[in-house]
């Protein structure tokens, strides 16, 4: 089918040289948008999963270490007996200092500060724990406790990620539309350049589908060619961004690298774009020819 010669000199017009590069550019942009979208999606899912089964309980410092220890014991007792809790572990002094170090600097005299005690609570997977009820019970038994289920900031973060994702999707859609628009334009121009040959084909008894097949075949070939070129440029760009991200992240960002599924989705881009080009060309030819005699 690929070797089939065309009855119209479609590969020889200027548009034939211009379309693959335009499609290459579109696919390049689409690959970046899609990669960004996939990464954000994975990141959001990971955060959601990682955060939703933990709680942190904070206990305000009392005036003596004995009292503190007693309060921590009481709190732990209540938490561990609460339904859905897998385990609860108080953060030791050293870990707390580590967490504070970025703010206070190394050896920043944090020992003198009245620091709260933190209890890291792991929930059973899939368990929905009523954080408000826990907070209420703790407050009744040990005044000065607070329960943080990370819900608020996690929700905001995820909302932000989803917004960016929606933007990326919109960018992909726009790229798809732009590709379709370009193909409509080049196909119409091709129809008018080859108007005479098409008329001859018609007078010989060719159906519109016969002519449309030639344009669609050409658009498919060019879409694939352009798509592959675009992808060839996009891959090093993505690898470069990934490399820079791993160097920069320093624990701030979760692991940002594309997994095999993501690469497979990216490899599908030229196919999708080529299919868009083919269908668009076919529809354009059919619609334009329907207006001819």
């Amino acid at each position, binding site marked *: 089918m690929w070797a089939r*010669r065309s*009855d*119209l*000199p479609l590969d*020889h017009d200027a548009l034939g040289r211009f379309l693959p590069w335009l499609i290459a550019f579109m696919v390049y942009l689409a690959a970046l948008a899609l990669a960004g979208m996939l990464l954000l999606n994975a990141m959001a899912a990971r955060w959601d999963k990682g955060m939703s089964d933990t709680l942190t309980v904070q206990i305000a410092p009392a005036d003596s270490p004995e009292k503190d220890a007693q309060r921590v014991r009481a709190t732990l007792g209540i938490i561990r007996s609460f339904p859905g809790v897998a385990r609860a572990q108080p953060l030791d002094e050293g870990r707390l200092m580590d967490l504070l170090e970025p703010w206070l600097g190394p050896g920043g005299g944090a020992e003198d500060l009245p620091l709260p005690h933190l209890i890291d609570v792991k929930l059973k997977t899939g368990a929905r724990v009523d954080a408000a009820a826990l907070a209420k019970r703790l407050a009744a038994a040990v005044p000065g406790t607070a329960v943080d289920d990370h819900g608020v900031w996690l929700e905001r973060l995820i909302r932000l990620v989803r917004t960016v994702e929606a933007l990326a999707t919109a960018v992909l859609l726009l790229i798809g539309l732009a590709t379709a628009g370009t193909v409509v334009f080049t196909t119409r121009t091709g129809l008018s350049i080859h108007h*005479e*040959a098409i*008329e*001859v*084909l*018609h*007078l*010989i*008894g*060719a*159906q519109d589908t*016969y002519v449309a097949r030639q344009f669609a075949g050409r658009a498919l070939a060019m879409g694939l060619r352009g798509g592959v070129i675009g992808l060839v440029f996009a891959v090093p760009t993505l690898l470069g961004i990934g490399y820079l991200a791993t160097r920069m992240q320093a624990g701030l960002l979760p692991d940002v690298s594309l997994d095999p599924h993501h690469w497979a989705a990216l490899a599908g881009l030229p196919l999708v774009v080529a299919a868009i080009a083919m269908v668009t060309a076919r529809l354009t030819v059919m619609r334009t020819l*329907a207006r001819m*005699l």
Partner: protein
Amino acid sequence: MTIEGSDCVVRFESVGLRYGLGPEVLQDISFALAPGSFHFLLGASGAGKSTLLRLMYLALKPSRGLISLFGHNMATTSRRQLPALRRRIGVVFQDFRLLHHLSAFDNVALPLRVAGVRENEIRKHVVELLTWVGLKDHVNIRPTILSGGQQQRVAIARAVIARPKLLLADEPTGNVDDRMAMRLMHLFEELNKLGTTIVIATHNETLVRRLGHPRLRLDAGWLDAGTPDQQAAGKPAAGVFAAATSGSRAKQSSESAA
């Protein structure tokens, strides 16, 4: 005003054609062609021969009147039905209209490819026909390199390759010598014997006289469909009745030829 027989291959009734708001290029054209008839279409340059042929091979729509082809009224025939009708019509265009990026072979093969004929059958028929019109050694040559006469023969081969039921030729022997012209005319006659209805527009009066087929004469947009004797005395505007007789006469002539 009935024209006998809905089995006519071509039937024109009071057909007029004007381009835009200009004067009528063709006026009140009425005639009918019986299956298997052979007609010459005569007339001075600009008389409307090519336009009349264009109406017949469905490249133009008439401004008024009725055209029917193979019993289909063109006014009520949908666009989707046209390809099937057009495949029954072979056309030799005056300017050949070969596709210049295709070889002689591919040009001649077009009507078969369009009709979905298998590639191995196409090869056999096309090479045979190109050999017959003397282009055996030019099968893979593009039309741009061929001479005018060679291009014309490619165009003729393309028009007849699919054994059309109606063959319309616009000056098909304009670029070849008399010997080749006669050879091509014999090709048309062969096709005619197989049942193809033929209309050939030409200036070549010698050829017309030698072959002696009935004539349709166009004069300033009016069609006269009389025999040579009648043409001498006849008026240009012969109208519907001439058409009716033309149809029956054509039938007779083809019967007597057979």
